[in-house]
């Protein structure tokens, strides 16, 4: 499941609510969750806010395909991605990736892999608000332990 949200969300509440509605909930042996939040600094500057732009049709299609292929590749019970768009502030959740599986290795591996694919390929862009002006984030931090 993929959800793109314009409003602030509680990732833990969303994750638990989603899980409670699934018919696989009694088969889960492992849940791996990644939550990305906005920090108030970047590249030595204070950041007071951020705008997240996306390409609505392509972002949704890309993330839905990522969920489908990851469930198949890692034999997951399910995978949930929630990503914010629009205006956000420090400490707000930006992204949730939750992977459910029977055993821990699949959930761990899949959550990491999904995040790395999302950060390198999903059409989303951040624009930071600084004390003076604003700037587009030019690139994401590369994964130090790329798969």
């Amino acid at each position, binding site marked *: 499941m993929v959800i793109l949200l314009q409003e602030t969300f509680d990732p833990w509440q969303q994750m638990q609510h989603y899980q409670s509605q699934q018919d696989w909930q009694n088969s889960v042996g492992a849940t791996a969750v990644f939550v990305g939040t906005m920090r108030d600094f970047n590249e030595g500057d204070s950041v007071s806010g951020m705008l997240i732009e996306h*390409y609505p*049709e392509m972002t949704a299609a890309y993330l839905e395909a990522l969920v489908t292929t990851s469930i198949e590749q890692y034999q997951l019970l399910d995978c949930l991605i929630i990503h914010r768009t629009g205006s956000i502030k420090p400490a707000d959740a*930006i*992204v949730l990736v939750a992977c459910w599986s029977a055993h821990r290795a699949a959930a761990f591996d899949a959550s990491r892999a999904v995040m790395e694919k999302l*950060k390198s390929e999903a*059409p*989303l*862009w951040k624009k930071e608000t600084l004390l003076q002006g604003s700037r587009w984030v*030019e690139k994401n931090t590369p994964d130090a332990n790329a798969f």
Partner: protein
Amino acid sequence: MSETITVRVRFFASFREQFGLSDETLSVANNTTIRQLFKLLLPDAEIPDRILVARNQEYSDLGQVISDGDEIAYFPPVTGG
């Protein structure tokens, strides 16, 4: 066969601001590539080194030939997550 085709062109993020284009519809010649389409729209602009392109909401490349009704998008490296 028609000599021209109609395409929708979209720009996102810093490219939208840099080039002053967001969502355009135009007619171009058959067999136009995604690279040529960029130059038709922005004849004086250099194609950015780190450009990403999509055709009908899927990643593509500048050499791809476009078809009637296609939606082509140009955008910088992604920074979500």
